[in-house]
């Protein structure tokens, strides 16, 4: 009898402890407002290319300190240059902007898993989220609206949402817009960019120009812009051949062998394109094309013009190493400034005087690296060094881009910075 009573008391006490713990966990996130002054502008100086016009005004104007807040950043992968450099850049802004950053990784195939990841961020009391993937957006935006959390995009064109759920996503008060990784689908120029790089290569190597190329793309359903880019490239070559002394042959895109189903290029690709001297890969060539080139032993005899940078390409770039890579393209990590500033404005309850009514997806210029000189510049960038000291913008610059840090800041200026992030802008 006594034993049973003891058991009941113990069980009640344990249940009580659990209940108190649960309550304790729930209220852990809100901390007191930290009133520390914004950090100094850091060691690097502004490039004066974007918000510089307003910077001067802002320096004289009394800057308002931003609220203490937390922003979750949901990447597409947990490692790599793009992720590491973006994290380094964001962390450098943390003190000046009074923002803490927390990170997670989304999946490329599972909507439910992505929703769970976003719910986890919301549960950890974030005030805003920057997302790099357009998968399950309608559910995600509903979740954000319910929780009062703002959402921005980075390295993603949100094409699925744009075409199938525009009203739910882009018209939502909680979606601030996205900085697209390169051109948005409305303004594709990658085909002509690839063509220009090929012509530049031929001009540098007039004694041994590339006269026969083949292509590789990802499936249209996933990356429609790559198909458009490939068509653009073929059209540019055809126009060039009308007057060229040494015409260029492009192998027509073979749906079966040249469209990579997110798997590396088949080893028989080179037998199927026996005369090709270079691959124009709109798909990520470092991960999906180059390994097969090495395996097939053609990495010394063929060239690769591609997008992306996974690390190590510089060793075999231009005239270095086996000289396989002749073009790479990446988006500057600083382009995350666009959604970040828009989120901070929302969180601080302010907006630009010229803020558009609906969220936009804005094309970001890219680092186009197609010569040894470009590579030398690229190696000084924040992307390559993963060092925020090499970033284009100091924390003070970014503060000056916000509506609360600089009353004269405009949306047009913020949008404008995305078009300036080219290889020439690297200090």
């Amino acid at each position: 009898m006594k034993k049973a009573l003891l058991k009941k008391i113990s069980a009640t006490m344990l249940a009580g402890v659990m209940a108190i713990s649960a309550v304790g966990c729930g209220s852990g996130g809100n901390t007191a407002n930290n009133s520390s002054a914004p950090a100094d502008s850091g060691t690097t100086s502004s490039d004066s290319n974007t918000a510089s016009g307003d910077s001067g005004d802002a320096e004289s104007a009394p800057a308002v300190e931003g609220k203490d807040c937390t922003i979750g950043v949901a990447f597409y992968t947990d490692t790599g240059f793009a992720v590491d450099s973006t994290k380094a850049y964001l962390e450098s802004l943390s003190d000046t902007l009074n923002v803490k950053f927390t990170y997670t990784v989304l999946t490329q195939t599972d909507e439910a898993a992505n929703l769970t990841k976003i719910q986890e961020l919301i549960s950890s009391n974030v005030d805003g989220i920057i997302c790099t993937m357009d998968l399950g957006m309608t559910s995600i935006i509903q979740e954000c609206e319910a929780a009062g959390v703002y959402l921005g995009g980075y390295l993603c064109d949100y094409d699925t949402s744009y075409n199938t759920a525009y009203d739910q996503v882009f018209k939502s008060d909680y979606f601030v817009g996205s900085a697209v990784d390169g051109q948005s689908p409305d303004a594709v120029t990658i085909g002509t960019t690839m063509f220009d790089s090929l012509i530049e290569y031929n001009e540098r190597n007039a004694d041994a120009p590339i006269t026969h190329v083949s292509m590789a793309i990802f499936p249209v359903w996933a990356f429609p812009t790559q198909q458009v880019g490939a068509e653009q490239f073929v059209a540019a070559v055809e126009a060039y051949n009308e007057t060229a002394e040494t015409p260029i042959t492009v192998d027509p895109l073979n749906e079966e062998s040249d469209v990579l189903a997110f798997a590396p290029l088949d080893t028989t690709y080179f037998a199927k394109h026996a005369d090709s001297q270079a691959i124009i890969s709109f798909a990520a060539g470092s991960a999906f094309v180059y390994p097969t080139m090495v395996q097939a032993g053609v990495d010394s005899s063929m060239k690769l013009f591609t997008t992306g940078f996974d690390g190590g390409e510089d060793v075999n770039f231009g005239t270095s190493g086996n000289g396989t890579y002749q073009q790479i393209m990446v988006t500057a990590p600083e382009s995350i400034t666009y959604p970040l500033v828009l989120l901070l404005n929302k969180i601080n309850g302010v907006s630009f005087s010229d803020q558009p009514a609906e969220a936009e997806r804005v094309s970001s210029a890219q680092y186009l690296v197609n010569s040894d000189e470009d590579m030398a510049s690229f190696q000084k960038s924040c992307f390559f060094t993963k060092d925020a000291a090499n970033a284009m913008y100091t924390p003070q610059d970014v503060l000056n881009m916000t509506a609360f840090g600089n009353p004269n800041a405009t949306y047009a200026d913020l949008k404008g910075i995305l078009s300036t992030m080219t290889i020439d802008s690297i200090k």
Partner: protein
Amino acid sequence: MKGSGNIIKKIVLSAIFPILMFVVMLIITASNDKCYVNGKLIFLSTDLIRQVIINACMTICVALAIWLQLKNGRFDFSGGASMILTAIIAGNVGLTTNSPVIALLVAVVVGIVLSSVTAIVYIIGRLPIIICTIGMTLLYESLTYLVSGGQGIRIFYSQAHTSIFGRIPGVLVPTALAVAAFVIFTYFTAAGRKGKVLSNNQRAGVNIGIDEKKNVFVTYIFTGIIIGLAAIVYVSQHEVAPQSGLATSGIMFSYIVPVFMGTFIGLASCDVVGIAIAAIGMEIMNYGLNCLNLGAGGWQQIIMGIFVLGFYAFSAQTDKIQAFMEKRKKSAKSA
């Protein structure tokens, strides 16, 4: 005379699988327009030999590491994680020293160390092998994020002077060493022979005086050597990224098909030859599928799955087929 006849019979029976596979794929590709470029059948290009050798060497190394444990009565899930961690460490050392030979030596040493650690945990922990090796897999996978700043190893395979063990003819060196290590352990060491007894009847083996713990440890050391050699081939052919969530087991399992096929084909000769022959046959099939543009994605998996299932179904009926043939022979004689 009878001896030489036996050898010829063994060679013919062993070679029949890749030859049949080659003929079948030749017929299929030759009758398909997709496989012709400028009037030439791409299946018959020299690239076939290169790809089959390069891929088969990688498969043989991993398959031997899997089979060495399997034939000793254990299924080691940690083999893939050991290989990936070894590849990252050896690749980075090789890059720093600019020497593929040093990378190979480091790979073998690290492979032995990691396998030894697994063996010690298994022996001292008295854990079931599946629990022990899954635990070690998770541990080694987590270490892949700590070594070299979590960046894995990317450019080792892309430089001709560092990746010689992933290309022809260098790839034959680690493969030959792996085969040698397997043969020495299995046929020339007491531990190898005792392992056979233990895998058949562990209690009987222990009762006749076999030191099971010592046997486990020696087996793991030889497995470590083969894993190290597999790692150097792997890092010479691939980027190696940090792994998590038992992903390394998936990498290891992708090389497991020739293990089971090899044990059947090896009935005509020995298991190591069977595994090598099976690996070559499967790579010929893969190349043929590549020519048909079926080298990746769902169809490749379906075709491969059906073929492997059919092969296993057939090999499982070997005894019955033999008995049927014997019966027919006898009835023919009596008639």
